[in-house]
Structure formats: structure tokens, C-alpha cells
């Protein structure tokens, strides 16, 4: 193989590796540079055809897609999607979201979300597990209290680290506190 051909192959490898990075850069940035927060969570279980079983998580303490809160009405023309920001404040052990705003908050932690589809998506809605375990988690979390541990970077990108159930380990600021317990011990994605 000629050197020119080798150069092209290496270029393809490099560009494709960059594209892989682009695909996950929000989650990577949050995991590497972010700070941990705990949010209340409730799941249900569909199947994603591309990536196997996952638990679709809902966050009761985060705002839903409320047109009135976002200043839209049904009569408006379909408009281009804009960034939606959810400021976070601490309440007891957990963090909760304030109503969605359009301008990036200047202080405090916040989530950068997308409101272009049927739900407000903040990058922490899917938790991938083998299908059988996903069903176990769904059942267990539906019957108990669950807490999602996420990391959020300074730009609002969030990454889901793990889900814990029960009263133990409900440390609102650190996932590694004493007595912290993860569900099934091996489902952490870190």
C-alpha cells in the first residue's frame, strides 16, 4: 500500500474517531468535568431498536414540557427549537428543577435541555441495562424510592451515572458517601 493510501486511511480513522467523540461529547464532558447531583427518579421500560434494553427515566422534580411556562401557544406557527435551561436548587437531600428559562442562568447549576420533541429532554432520560435487569429495576423502583446520580458540567450537559433505591445513599451532593448503595451493585455505568 502506498504512503498516500496509508495517509488517507489514517485520516479516515481520525475523522471517524472525532465523529464518535462528537456523538457523546456532552456526556463525556459532564462525566469528566462535572459535579454530582441527586434527583428523584421514576422509570418505565421500552426497547430501543438500536441499542438494546434501557429504562426510560422520568424526573418528577424537573419541569415537564409546559407550553405556558415556555411562552408558546397552540396557535403559534411551528418555530425553530431553542435551548431550554432548567436551573437546579437543593431541597433537602435532593436537587429539584425550577421552571424552564430561555436564557442561560448566570449562577448556580442548571441543565441544558431540548424541547423540540414531545418531552423535555436533558440528556439523562435513558439508562441502559440488559433487558431482564431493566424489568427488575423498573419493578423495584416503581415500588420504592429511587434516586438518580448525575453529573453536570458548567455548560449544563448532564450524564447519568447510576440509580439508587431505598433510603440509604440518598446523599444529595455525593454519590460516594458512606453507606451509599447502588442498585444490584453492578449497574453503575461509571
Amino acid at each position: 500500500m502506498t504512503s498516500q493510501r496509508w495517509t488517507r486511511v489514517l485520516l479516515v480513522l481520525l475523522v471517524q474517531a472525532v465523529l464518535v467523540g462528537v456523538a457523546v461529547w456532552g456526556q463525556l464532558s459532564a462525566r469528566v468535568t462535572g459535579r454530582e447531583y441527586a434527583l428523584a427518579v421514576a422509570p418505565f421500560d421500552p426497547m430501543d431498536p438500536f441499542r438494546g434494553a434501557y429504562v426510560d427515566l422520568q424526573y418528577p422534580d424537573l419541569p415537564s414540557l409546559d407550553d405556558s411556562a415556555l411562552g408558546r401557544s397552540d396557535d403559534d406557527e411551528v418555530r425553530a427549537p431553542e435551548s431550554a435551561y432548567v436551573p437546579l436548587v437543593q431541597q433537602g437531600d435532593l436537587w429539584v428543577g425550577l421552571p424552564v428559562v430561555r436564557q442561560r442562568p448566570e449562577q448556580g447549576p442548571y441543565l441544558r435541555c431540548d424541547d423540540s420533541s414531545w418531552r423535555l429532554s436533558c440528556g439523562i432520560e435513558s439508562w441502559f441495562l440488559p433487558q431482564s435487569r431493566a424489568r427488575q429495576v423498573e419493578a423495584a423502583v416503581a415500588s420504592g424510592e429511587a434516586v438518580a446520580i448525575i453529573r453536570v458540567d458548567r455548560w449544563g450537559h448532564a450524564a447519568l451515572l447510576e440509580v439508587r433505591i431505598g433510603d440509604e445513599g440518598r446523599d444529595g451532593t455525593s454519590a460516594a458517601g458512606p453507606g451509599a448503595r447502588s442498585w444490584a451493585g453492578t449497574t453503575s455505568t461509571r
Partner: protein
Amino acid sequence: MRDTRAGKGASAPAAGDAGQARSWSTTPGQLGWLQAQLPLWREEGLIDAAAATAIAGRYVAHRRFSLVRLVMALGGMFVAVGLIWLVAANLDTMSPLVRFALVAAVWVGLLLGGEVVAARRAAEGDSSSPLVGVLHALATAAVGAVIFQAAQSLNVPAYTPGLVGLWGLAALVHGYSLRAASSVLIGAGLLTGWFVWGTVIDAPSFVSGVTALLVAGCLATAVAVLHESHWWPALSGAWGMVGALLVLIGVFVAALPVRDQGRLGWWSWFVVVVVLAVLAALAALAGADTLDRRVEVLVPVAALSLAVLLVLWGRSLPEDVFDVTALTPGLWLRAVVAVAGFVAVAGWYAVMGVRRDRLWLTSLATAALVLFVTVQSFAVFAPVISGATLFLAVGAVLLASGVLADRGRRRLITHVGTQEES
């Protein structure tokens, strides 16, 4: 004699030692024709024996489509599907990082292995090895597996169209950098999927889906014509296939009796692709050197107009679209226009396939036409008269068209013969 080097079926000459004549690949049919013509040319004194021998020895028969290619293509497809499925299986026997490393190793191995094999085949003079094409396609599938494994390992939210778009972009980078038509074909298909999916997510409506399909078809067709006339003829077929498929699917779907009051959204990428399609179509029209190529660019545009008209017209369908007692003459006219429009589009693609020796295009258009008439018969016409009515009507039109065309051909032959005699 037609220059088969530039024509269909001929491929680049095989590498040979210095001083030896190079050989060209051509189809068995073309080689048979040539071998039948050479003795005639010798008898007429056009060439001598040495020239006839040299010409005959210049070409070797090579089948574009062979059992080997079919088996390898199927095998490659199954392996690609299995690889993506393996990612979907979410095996918990290995940690996410190990799984990612494994999939990445497969990807790099396929990419490098494909290039090593391509280099060896090129050195042996085998310029169209099916194994090289399959390895390129597998490497393209593998980069998709890497993207999805990375997304799974880091819990990127499900149903993210952007991942499919990035996979398509990666496939195009592979295809254009390493001259891999299979990768370009896969990339064009993936980017289409991303575009249609994203448009429908932004504005979930029938008009959004149909418009996205046909805008993508217009863009792909314009790109195909640009490749054929200016850029890279070898990749024209891949883009042309995607364009034709999208146009046929778009009109097919638009012709269905669907009552939808939804709106067209203006997702930012939708606007970008529309602008790209317009620019590409204008560039292709400006650079097209034949009427066929100009028409090829305009047919998808006409199909887009027809499809949007049918979708908007469908808004006046009754709530129960199969309640034939509620159909007005205007809606019956819609059904007739839909059938006539699709037959015209499919017929044009079939004719173009014959004129340009693109068997795949003729087959695609023919299959689409049969499927369309069948679906329309059962979905629209069966409740009223009989599904057979549509088959009879369309069949009669096609037969009549064929008779007229054959009459024209015989008249032309007679006219030319008369001119030669005089």
C-alpha cells in the same frame, strides 16, 4: 467500434508487466458481440488478422453480477446486522469500556484489513474484487457499532437521530476518501434516515414525512447527476439509486388516502437540506450536457410538487377515508391524479433504466409500479368497483403505450431504410 473502456461493462485495465499489452474487463455479452464482429470486419477489409487478434486479446469477460458477489454481499449484510445487534444485546458479561474497546478493535481491524486486501488485489490486477467492497461495507457498519456502543456506554438518550446522522457522515468520509461506493451508498441511506426522522420528530405530520423524503430524493438525484457529469462517475450510481428509491417511496406514500391536518415544521437542518437541494439542482441543471440529465434533475422536483399537492388535497378526505359514500368527485379526481402521477414517475425511471442500461433502475421502477397498483387497488378501488379495475386500466395504458412505441420504432426503421436505398 464503441469504446468499451468508457462504456458500460468495461473497467480499468489490469496492471501488467512493462511492455505487455494491458487487458480490459468487459461483460460476457459485449465480448461475445465483439468476437462475432471481428470476422465480419476482416471480411470487409476494415482490419487485418493481426489487428483482429490484438483487439480480441485486449478484452476479458467479467460478470458484474455473479454468484460469488451475491453470496459475499449476503454474508457481509448478515455480519453487519449481527454486529449492530451485538451492541443492542447489551452484554453485561463485560464492562461498557471493554465492550467499547472490542467493537472499536473490530472497526479498526476491518478498516485496515480492507485496505490491505484492496492493495493486494490491485497489485494482482483484480480491480473489482467483491471482497474489497464487502470489507468496506463492513468497516462502515462497524463505525456505526462504535458510535452506538459509545452512546450506550455513556447513556446517551435513546431515539437520538443525531447518532444516525453522524454514522452517515462517517460512512461518507470513508467512501470518498477510500473510493468505496458501498460506503457511499450506506452513508447516503443513513443520512436520509437521519433527515426524515429528525424532520418528523420536529413536526410529527404526514406532510413533514413526505416532504422530507422527496427533498432528500431531489438532493440525492442532483448529486448523482453532478457526479456523473463532473465529479466522480463511479459514485453516480449509488446516489442515483438512493434518489430514485426516495422519489418512488415519497410519491407512493403521498398517493395513499391519508387525512392529515399536520403542518410542516422548519427544523434548522430541514432548512439547510432544502437550501442544499436547491443549490445542487441548479448546479446540476447548469452543468448537464444532455436533455436526459436535465430531465433527471427535474423529475424529482415535479414529484415533490405532485406529492405535496396530493397530501394537501388529502385534507379534504372524509374522517373515515374508506367511506366511499362520502367521496366527492374532487376526491375521485385525486385518486386518478395520484395513480397517473405515480405511473408517470415510475414509468420514466423504467425508461431511463433501459436507455442507460441500468437494470437495477428498471427493476426498481417495475417492482414499485406493481406494488403501487396492488396497494391502490385494495386500498382505494376495491371498496367501490373492484381492485381488478385498476389493474385493467393501468395494464391497458401500458400496452397501448408499448404498441405506439413499437409502431414508431418500425416506422423509423422503414424510413431509414428508404433513405439508404435512395
